[in-house]
């Protein structure tokens, strides 16, 4: 079987996670890893004796790579992806979400992908969770009829009780990029293109960055309220949920379950345990294995992967619109 030659750029927790999952796939060979931090670089060179570890993406250019995973902090996605395309390191790119730190940069990357790339994808892994996939399939089949409204949240306790302003907090972009992007992607996937109607920010520390944002999205006949915060108490793991109302009933979907209440009086609940949730190798969440497996298969088959850069750039667009509304008061 043909094996894909892959490299991973950025060895934070997401880089290590993807590198590990790719390593167990029979159709993949992890050829190189790339990390800028000198402290981590030295450590990883000792740790990964059989895999090349480099400190600059340009050093990946001679490795005849079939694909590169970009798992650096969000603000670095733009220069790294640009270099990878322009230096012809590879034509197939996977970028952890969000695609870029602004819609303008995301558009530039889409244009580059169009001219210099083949298969591309952004890591909106919630699309690969069995509960959200089942919800999408039901919505497409018209189980709820015409959708009229939704409420969504993305909460974590990542910065709950942390009073000092943190450099990492800023380097991760905003709470919208880091956490909100997942739920925005799910809303766009479920309901199609949406426009931002209003947005209200909250800053828990010093006003230097938003810790929570509440905004409304709408399109003809449909309105949605979204709440995003990384300062919630008791959200040990990031949690995402949508409550969707349609003419035929209500659906509540999150990482753990899918509840359906129809106007005819019938109701059902499916847990992950009901939805065939096993994967060949489980690390972190099952979604990571599924999205990597799907991306690899897309490259091998030479077909488009979703969410592509183009699709994912719509999330950057919504985030930009929310930020504009916030800045314009």
């Amino acid at each position, binding site marked *: 079987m043909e094996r894909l030659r892959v490299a991973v750029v950025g060895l934070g927790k997401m880089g290590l996670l993807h590198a590990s999952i790719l390593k167990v796939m029979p159709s993949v060979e992890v050829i190189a890893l790339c990390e800028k931090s000198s402290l981590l670089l030295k450590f990883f060179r000792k740790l990964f004796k059989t895999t090349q570890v480099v400190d600059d993406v340009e050093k990946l250019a001679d490795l005849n790579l079939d694909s590169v995973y970009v798992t650096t902090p969000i603000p670095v996605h733009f220069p790294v992806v640009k270099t990878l395309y322009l230096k012809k390191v590879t034509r197939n790119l996977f970028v952890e979400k969000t695609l870029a730190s602004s819609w303008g940069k995301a558009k530039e990357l889409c244009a580059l992908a169009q001219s210099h790339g083949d298969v591309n994808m952004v890591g909106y892994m919630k699309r690969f969770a069995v509960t959200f996939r089942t919800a999408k399939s039901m919505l497409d089949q018209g189980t709820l009829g015409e959708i009229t409204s939704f409420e969504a949240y993305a909460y974590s306790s990542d910065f709950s009780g942390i009073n000092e302003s943190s450099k990492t907090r800023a380097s991760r972009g905003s709470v919208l990029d880091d956490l909100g992007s997942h739920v925005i992607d799910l809303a766009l996937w479920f309901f199609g293109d949406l426009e931002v109607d209003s947005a209200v920010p909250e800053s828990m520390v010093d006003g230097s960055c938003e810790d929570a944002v509440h905004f409304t999205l709408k399109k003809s006949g449909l309105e949605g309220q979204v709440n995003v915060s990384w300062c919630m108490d008791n959200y040990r793991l990031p949690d995402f949920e949508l409550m969707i109302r349609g003419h035929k009933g209500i659906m509540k979907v999150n990482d753990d379950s899918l509840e359906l209440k129809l106007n005819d009086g019938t109701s059902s609940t499916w847990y992950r*345990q009901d939805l065939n949730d*096993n994967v060949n190798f489980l*690390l972190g969440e099952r979604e990571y294995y599924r999205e990597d497996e799907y991306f690899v298969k897309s490259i091998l088959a030479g077909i488009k992967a979703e969410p592509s850069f183009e699709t994912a750039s719509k999330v950057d667009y919504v985030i930009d619109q929310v930020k504009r509304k916030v800045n314009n008061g």
Partner: protein
Amino acid sequence: MANESKKVLLVGDNPFHGISHLSQERARARSNEIEQVEYAANLVVTSLENGASGFMFSVSDTTLSILQKIREKIGNNHPALYGIVPYAYEYVRLATRLGTAGLVKKVAKQVTLSGNLRAIITGLHGIVRNDPKTLMKTYLISEVSRIKSSIGKQHNLDSMLLHEIITDMALALDLDWIFKSYIRFIGELGIKPGFETRNFAYLANKFKEWNLDFSEILIVAPFNKVGFQMNPSRAECERALAEVPESNVIAMSILAAGYLKLPEAIEYIENLSNIKGVVVGVSKEKHACETFRLLKERLDA
């Protein structure tokens, strides 16, 4: 063929950290009581009085306080203790807040502040030589020292397990030296080395390939009637279990995170070969009594 020997029955600490794999909403809805040290210690003691033979816990400030409280309550009646390192959630949260390099610095500071001279000296060697093996050893010395200060010098740990995130990542990355070094080092301390995994079939195959001695180690992995977290499949995990040469496997997630009722969960475990015991979390006193009475009656008779 069912294994008819007595089973190890362990109470787990997941509920004390606000974990429910069935539903995060359910975990949040639980009373804050469950995360209080006194309440959690009472639950462990009740479980021990009703048939549990030991306590399995992630090494965190919370569980170390629970251990101290248990010790005050039961005096010299030592339960079997199974520690899991590292407490991955806390480290992932730190990495999220500080970045990976920030996390490394924070752990180095923690080891230094632990005041354990052996850990500090070993750690300095590791940093100077930038040697992952020595750094791992340093971390383990410091964690064992933290546990000992909570359980008392006379009391020993029965097993020290590597958390599933580290086990599974090291498995995937083919880092056999991590397993070999871990087994050697923990074994030298007179503690049984163990590994928690959510990829039991993969681990069993790798360990055979690396010629690791199953009699020297303990493995904790999900086993339940609905195949929850049994990757790649229930059938593959059962086949791998039947083929391991020693009965040193403890089943976790036997209730499939609250999806199954206890009698049907036990019925499945009873019919598995090569299971050494089970670990189950409890969140209420009544739940602790009923769970361990029934487990003892059915599995430890």
